[in-house]
């Protein structure tokens, strides 16, 4: 197989990879923030001296399951659940849907913990200053806390985003065709490692680009520290 046709086949697969990547980010970045808020929620009741916070507890359980079980297993569960539980027929689009849902649910849990560490890292004095000045809770969050949180979470976020690009290869488990699936089938039929090398280079370059972009953000926010 010529290099050009190899790259064009992988390129097609890479478009699917990017679709999973961007849709996951689009869903998991905001959902993670919601999960972080639920996790930090103080609503609850007292039993003796102990405070029970049901919303936070449920969220903590969700996060621990997402982090404590393999993403591939989660993918299979999300993909097959409609069939085994509800007897629904699975189609080609259900592969894609399952991949996106599983990735968003999984990554939102990781992002939530990153957000939480970022939010809790902002000094208490920032909240107090805003409160005394009369900022509302949402003004305090969006104007004072959020921008400072973003600066704090960029390095761990870069890690997770780079991991996401690589994790998209797990979608092969439910037969969703992305770049890794394509590379594997080419490699099988050609009896050569060429396709794997080419795919590796594409993953690597994509992640270099991500790291570079995130580095630019970090630099942009390095004009201050606390």
């Amino acid at each position: 197989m010529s290099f050009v046709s190899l790259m064009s086949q992988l390129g097609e697969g890479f478009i699917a990879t990017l679709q999973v990547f961007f849709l996951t980010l689009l869903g998991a970045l905001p959902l993670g923030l919601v999960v972080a808020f639920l996790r930090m929620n103080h609503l609850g009741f007292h039993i003796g001296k102990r405070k029970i916070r049901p919303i936070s507890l449920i969220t903590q359980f969700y996060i621990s399951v997402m982090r404590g079980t393999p993403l591939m297993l989660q993918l299979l569960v999300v993909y097959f659940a409609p069939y085994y539980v509800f007897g629904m027929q699975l189609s080609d689009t259900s592969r894609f849907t399952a991949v996106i849902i599983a990735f968003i649910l999984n990554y939102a849990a990781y992002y939530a913990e990153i957000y939480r560490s970022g939010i809790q890292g902002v000094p208490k004095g920032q909240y107090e200053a805003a409160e005394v000045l009369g900022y509302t809770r949402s003004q305090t969050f969006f104007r004072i806390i959020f921008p400072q949180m973003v600066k704090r979470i960029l390095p761990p976020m870069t890690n997770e985003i780079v991991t996401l690009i690589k994790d998209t290869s797990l979608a092969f488990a439910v037969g969703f065709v992305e770049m890794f699936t394509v590379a594997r089938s080419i490699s099988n039929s050609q009896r050569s490692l060429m396709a794997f090398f080419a795919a590796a280079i594409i993953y690597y370059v994509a992640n270099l680009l991500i790291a570079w972009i995130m580095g630019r953000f970090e630099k942009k926010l390095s004009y201050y520290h606390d």
Partner: protein
Amino acid sequence: MSIVSLEHIHKSYGDNPVLRDISISVDKGEVVGIIGPSGGGKSTLLRCATLLEHFDSGSLTYDDIVVAKNDAQGKAEYAGKDAIKRAKSKFGLVFQNFNLFSHYTVMRNITEPPQVVQGRSKDEVYAQAKKLISQMGLEGKEDMVPCDLSGGQQQRVAIARALCMNPEILYFDEPTSALDPELTQEVLRVIRGLADQHMTMVIVTHEMNFARDVADRVVFMDGGVIVEEGPAKQVIEHPQKKRTQDFLRTYEG
């Protein structure tokens, strides 16, 4: 007519009482110094007056706004959002650790709160901010961020930020405790200037000479109670109570 009045304030952290029946009020134009050993309840009192903490029982009023008063069971009951918001517009607070918004420039630190909270126009707020910046001796620092300023400069920005909200009373919580002696003087000079303009202020401080010279009235707090209070010179130079005398003796030296 007092601007702020706290009456019979009680507050405990768990089983540990920090404020025990504190009553204090401040008149317009008055400068009150609060002195006393650490852990005596001075900061907690300021935090209660600025609504950063709630007290267990007692009452708090700003002008004619009742912020909190005792209910039938003798527990402090706080007013609704609206009254709290109006009360907050009456005071400003300068923190020991400045607490400037670290991602904002000096100018934005001073000009954003009046626009966001009070809905004032940008032009008007900027004009006032420029005056405050020159009054605080911060010309040329407008576009710098807090981390590039000295502690004394940061504290002066914090004072400007509080003043730009046009508060009727300004609280200082140990404003120079985080500063070197040299930087302490520049901040004290600014506060002295405000006193000359008859700004109403309550200053928690360990600077006894400053309290004696600038405050009209000095309150000595220890163990969650007001041990002694009176004209600044009298309390600091001729304290009547033994605890006050013992405390002030540690400052002579």
